């Protein structure tokens, strides 16, 4: 089989994107492998609390070398594109700002919006590839009736990454291939093995790629310390919804909605963080049942299966990556804002996270919870 089209494959050095490259190569496409160098893992290494070694993290040299070996094995050209400045500006800086103002950010979505499906598509076009392929577990297809590109959940629902992809524009979707959308992860590993990829058994990456060890508080400290700053003092009171002061906290960045640990309030039944008031440096705590919200508001919207929301729409809403979508009705409630009213109240609606709306398998759109 021979295809005339050149496709740029986003290669991370992991099993998924490596298998994508192998699959497309077998289909006869002309491929160019690209890795975005997003973060220097050694940059904060050795600062207090940060690991000395960067082994096994995304963007580590090990991963780049793994990707390079796959490219060599498949005999495709492969390049590393330096996007560290843009990643810091568009992902890391907002990540730090969000935590410092009491919200809980989703850096992977920002990275998809600004780097993987913006910069990478630009670079791909510059080097002669109109489309890119990635190892995300998602499906996309053009619906001629609606005249729109549709983003759908993958066959392997346990690997579903559509939550992080709600920001993709029609143009970006039209230029992207998700070849793993119809496969289950074990099948992907099997294909990798059949294709002779040495990393078929490489473990999946889990945590946020630029935070080795997974402790964001340690990262915030190290990141600010590097530029001679420290985390601003946002210590303050822990209060109940009735306004009763039940304790003190060391800084709002240490909390996320729904958190139980680390409150240091002695009480017969546990307290949870209900919300964070950055301006007053207050962390509002309460009982488990008080965490339930009947509705949420989301802004900075992106619509995929519909051109825009008119009137009401029945959808299922996912309010964090590992959340079972809940039935809700969404309506427009302001400029670039929707309100989702849940059929059943949902626990720990968290400002800074994304609310992604589904209609069955399809992603309707989404926005950022305020």
């Amino acid at each position, binding site marked *: 089989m021979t295809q005339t089209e050149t496709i740029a494959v986003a290669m991370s050095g992991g099993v998924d994107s490596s298998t994508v490259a192998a699959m497309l190569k077998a289909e006869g496409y002309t491929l*160019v492998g690209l*890795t975005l*160098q997003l973060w220097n893992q050694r940059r904060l290494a050795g600062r207090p609390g940060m690991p000395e070694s960067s082994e096994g993290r995304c963007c580590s*040299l090990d991963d*780049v070398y793994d990707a*390079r070996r796959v490219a060599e094995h498949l005999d495709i*050209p492969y*390049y*590393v*594109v*330096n996007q560290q400045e843009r990643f810091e500006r568009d992902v890391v800086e907002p990540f730090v700002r969000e935590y410092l103002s009491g919200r809980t950010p989703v850096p992977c979505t920002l990275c998809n919006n600004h780097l993987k499906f913006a910069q990478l598509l*630009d*670079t791909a*076009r*510059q*080097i*002669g590839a109109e489309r890119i392929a990635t190892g995300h577990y998602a499906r996309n297809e053009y619906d001629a009736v609606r005249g729109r590109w549709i983003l759908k959940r993958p066959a392997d629902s346990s690997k579903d990454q559509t939550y992080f992809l709600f920001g993709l524009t029609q143009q970006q979707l039209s230029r992207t291939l998700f070849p793993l959308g119809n496969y289950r992860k074990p099948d992907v590993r099997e294909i990798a093995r059949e294709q002779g990829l040495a990393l078929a058994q490489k473990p999946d990456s889990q945590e946020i790629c630029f935070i080795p060890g997974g402790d964001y508080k340690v990262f915030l400290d190290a990141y600010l310390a590097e530029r001679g700053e420290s985390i601003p003092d946002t210590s303050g009171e822990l209060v109940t919804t009735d306004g009763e002061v039940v304790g003190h906290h060391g800084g709002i960045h240490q909390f996320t909605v729904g958190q139980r640990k680390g409150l240091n309030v002695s009480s017969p039944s546990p307290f949870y963080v209900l919300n964070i008031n950055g301006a007053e440096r207050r962390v509002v705590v309460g009982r488990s049942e008080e965490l339930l919200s009947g509705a949420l508001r989301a802004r900075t919207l992106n619509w995929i299966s519909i051109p825009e929301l008119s009137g009401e729409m029945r959808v299922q809403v996912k309010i964090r990556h590992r959340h079972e979508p809940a039935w809700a009705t969404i309506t427009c409630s302001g400029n670039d804002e929707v309100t989702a009213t849940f059929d059943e109240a949902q626990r720990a609606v968290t400002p800074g996270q994304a609310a992604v709306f589904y209609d069955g398998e399809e992603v309707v759109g989404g926005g950022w919870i305020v």
Partner: protein
Amino acid sequence: MFRRIYMDANATTPLLPEVFEAMRPYFMERFGNASSVHSFGQRARGAVEQARVQVAEFLHCRPAEIVFTSGGTESDNLALFGVTRPGDHVITTAIEHHAVLHAAEALQHAGREVTFLGVDANGVIDPEDIRRALRPNTRLISVMMANNETGAIQPVEAIGAIASEAGVLFHTDAVQSAGKLPIDVEKIGCHLLAISGHKMHAPQGTGVLFVRKDIKLEPLFYGGSHERQRRAGTENLAGIVALGKAAEIAAASLRDGMPEKLAALRDRMEHAIIASVGEAGAHSTAAPRVPNTTNLWFDHVEGEALVISLDLKGLAVSGGSACASGASEPSHVLTAMHVPAERARASLRFSLSKLSTAEDVDAAIALVPEAVSKLRELSPHYAAAN
């Protein structure tokens, strides 16, 4: 017909066939440890010393002043760490290769004071700046002979005179000069000088540090008494033989008009590309340059994308300096020349070797403008500016 053209000789060069033939017997039939007493060792010793003579002739020094190393980086580190002690002051420049720049930073952590001097817009150091930077405790001046990114030749003879007047040691990193310019350590007036094999058609992993006879050098490695106790470790026999041969060939080429031929090819390429691309130019053209190098800028283009596009068309050039992953980093040399960041990112280095041909240059003259205009069509900045 897809043909690959190599224009990155400042990164590395292939062996010349004569060099490969010279080293080949020393892997198997003529193997030996040059320190051994027996005939195998004697033969190896003979070959190493023959190479030492060849390199000494190339640099115009005595054979005993040649120390074989693993490459330019080791030679630079040996020079900087070998002659300075805590409390000493070292003067160097902001445009040095990382082998000197990062070694000098390490010297700072190891108790030396280091002054990093800037350069002018052409990437050339002013010797008077060096004179002004001298302190009572200045021990060493380290200035490269020619810059790897721009090709700009530094006023090393003037610096040598200042060093000698001040009674200060002078090291020059001549890695990018070897084979491109005549090198005469007497004329330069340097006490230390580094070259690398693989930039002049010898293998990677070979290098030389010239150490003037009366200089006491603290070694980097401790072990046997190889290289007159200046560099412990069994000699890289085949590599040293190759480096000797490469030096002999390079010396002959320098006499036979190779630099003039290279400069003509380089100039033709530079002029033709700039003329046909527009909004483009070359760095350091007002400075004397080594004959093989041109660093071209193309406004409204991302250098990284241009390097990849050209490579996909078969033309190998480089942009910025490569970090471990292979991604390009912004050039510290162009930054030191106060080239705006946008233009520094849009700058590519083309470096020829004696193996480059008129056909290679013709191909580059055809490929580069085509690739640049394609990228500019996609550039929002270009659309806005035109």
